[in-house]
């Protein structure tokens, strides 16, 4: 029983990071109906931003202080929001009225461009770099169970951000505009919604989420390298699809589910080798039974 609960705790800690990344995927998809493959690289850039600004912030706010930690998160999120908007402006906006496939291929191109530029020895270099401790972490013992403070932080941040995103999309003027753009870009433009600005805002928001996920991921596994985003990015994409792409709570649910599946499979002798195969096998099963994802609604394509 202890074993089961401990694995559940581990799975939630990992799943929260997938969930956070999946939120960003799903937001952009919700508005633009396209998968931003560069999302996982923005995550990596977020972690590297934190790596470079943390020593500066430490000088001002002191080592491992909560204030300094929040500042690192804010700076990383802000920098990545700008990078995200820049990517959208330079790579995706010129293709706005082209076939979806062209944008998709461009997204893959942007992703590879960032990865290989970052691997250059003059940029970040491809060897893993030690990530500084932003917050003193400690372990909380509950009987035989161990909960890491980092995992609690990750789960907390994910839930708070999910609520915040839901509130932005459902309750604010910008959110209403986002939903309008998502529903029908042309009609929204005719109603006076600044479509380009709204799309830009969505990318900024999604990229800020990626940056926060990147910093949390780096705190969990403090060796960061330019390809660190690829694996979690792929799994988060799967999580977003699993939950029903375009659906915010669905993305978080999918993320947690994937984290749990992977952790449990990883801890079973003989199966640990197949942890990805098991996780993705279950994904295929769910999609066969519910093609729109767990919380997604199936829509009828207008022809």
């Amino acid at each position, binding site marked *: 029983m202890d074993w089961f609960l*401990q694995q559940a705790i*581990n799975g939630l800690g990992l799943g929260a990071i997938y969930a956070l990344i999946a939120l960003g995927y799903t937001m952009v998809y919700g508005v633009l109906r396209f998968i931003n493959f560069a999302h996982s690289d923005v995550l990596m850039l977020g972690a590297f931003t934190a790596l470079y600004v943390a020593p500066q912030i430490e000088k001002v706010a002191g080592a491992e202080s909560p204030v300094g930690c929040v500042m690192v998160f804010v700076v990383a999120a802000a920098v990545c929001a700008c990078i995200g908007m820049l990517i959208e402006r330079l790579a995706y906006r010129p293709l706005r009225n082209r076939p979806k496939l062209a944008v998709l291929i461009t997204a893959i191109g942007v992703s590879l461009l960032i990865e290989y530029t970052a*691997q250059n020895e003059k940029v970040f270099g491809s*060897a893993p770099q030690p990530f500084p401790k932003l917050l003193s972490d400690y372990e909380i013992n509950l009987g035989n169970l161990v909960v890491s403070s980092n995992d609690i932080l990750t789960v907390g941040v994910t839930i708070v951000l999910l609520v915040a995103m839901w509130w932005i999309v459902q309750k604010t003027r910008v959110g209403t505009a986002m939903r309008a753009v998502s529903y029908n870009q042309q009609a929204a433009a005719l109603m006076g919604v600044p479509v380009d600005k709204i799309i830009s805002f969505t990318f900024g928001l999604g990229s800020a989420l990626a940056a926060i996920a990147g910093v949390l991921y780096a705190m969990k596994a403090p060796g960061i390298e330019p390809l660190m985003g690829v694996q979690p990015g792929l799994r988060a994409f799967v999580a977003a699809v699993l939950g029903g792409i375009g659906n915010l709570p669905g993305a978080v649910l999918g993320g947690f589910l994937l984290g749990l599946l*992977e952790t449990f*499979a990883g*801890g079973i002798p003989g199966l640990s080798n197949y*942890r990805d195969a098991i996780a993705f096998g279950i994904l295929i099963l769910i999609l066969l039974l519910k093609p729109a994802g767990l919380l997604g609604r199936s829509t009828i394509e207008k022809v």
Partner: protein
Amino acid sequence: MKAQYWISSLVVILIVFISLSSCKSGGGDKIKVGEFASLTGKEATFGTSAHEGTLLAIEQVNLSGGVLGKQLELLTEDDQTKAGEPANAVNKLISKDGVIAILGEVASSRSLEAAPICQQSQIPMISPASTNPTVTQEGNYIFRVCFNDDFQGGALANFASGTLKAKKVAILTDVKSDYSKGLAKSFKAKYSNNGGNIGTELDFNGGDKDFKGQLTAIKSDNPDAIFLPGYYNDVALICIQAKQLGMNIPIFGGDGWESESLLTIGKDAMEGHYFSTHCSIEQPTPEMTAFVAAYQKRFEGKTPDAMAVLGYDSAMVLVDAIKRAKTTESVALRDAIAATKNFAGASGNINLNADRDAVKALVFIQIKNEKFTYNTTVNP
């Protein structure tokens, strides 16, 4: 008419011959030696260290007049720590550059990729630090200047039952790495033979960042120690997460741990853990002392690790063989490398046995106060 035909075909043959021979020896005034290494990517410190050692050796030989009256030219290809790249690199070095021998790689998986190509082209290959037994079994042109994992796994098993007095050991293997799987296999055979009990056996994928699933399963099985035959990046993250889960048992592994990154990433989570490796730069032989001094002078005070020492030795063994063979012709060169006996390398005395493996002592290192400290030596 007939004479004309013969002359023209003779000319054609001559042209082909000349162009081929000039292609093979690259002008003839230099001896080309090929090297492939993981200079970038996940295991960049391995490749960089081995390359720096090799480069130092080549530069020293050239300064002292070269071999057979010729200068050596080192051609280095970066395989980016990626599967598939070693084959490209070695193919290019052999068929395009026409190198006389290949030096490389540290990781067994990548050496195993290059070895069949070298064997087929009959170009001798010397691996500095690939320890998987199957590497040199690829053929009679493949050598290594380090011990193999049958020896290392056995020594680790004796260490577990002797020094650590562990009754039950859990094993965590990297399924992506031939090195890791091979070392786990030879460890298991010897440790069971010693009367040890193998606990939970789990796998991970090199490059994973979350290992708590595996570690929790191991923790609930309550072993006395964990055997972790992996590479430094994964090892550091695994030790951090083991510490987070409150596991205080010793973790130990093989020479794949040796890198400064282990300490810079793992920090205090590495405290008290052990690994086996090829040599310690503290060993008091004149060869090692001279090597460390020359390396630090060449690379701005950088402290060499075992991979650098072995990279240096791999090049020196090759140079020694060229001198003895008095030619760079492949069959004679192969025979000369195979005949290497009592060669005083920086890492120790190198004797190549009939399996083309070096028979050498092994060193245990413990991590204390975030430093590698010498523990014991195990002789073959």
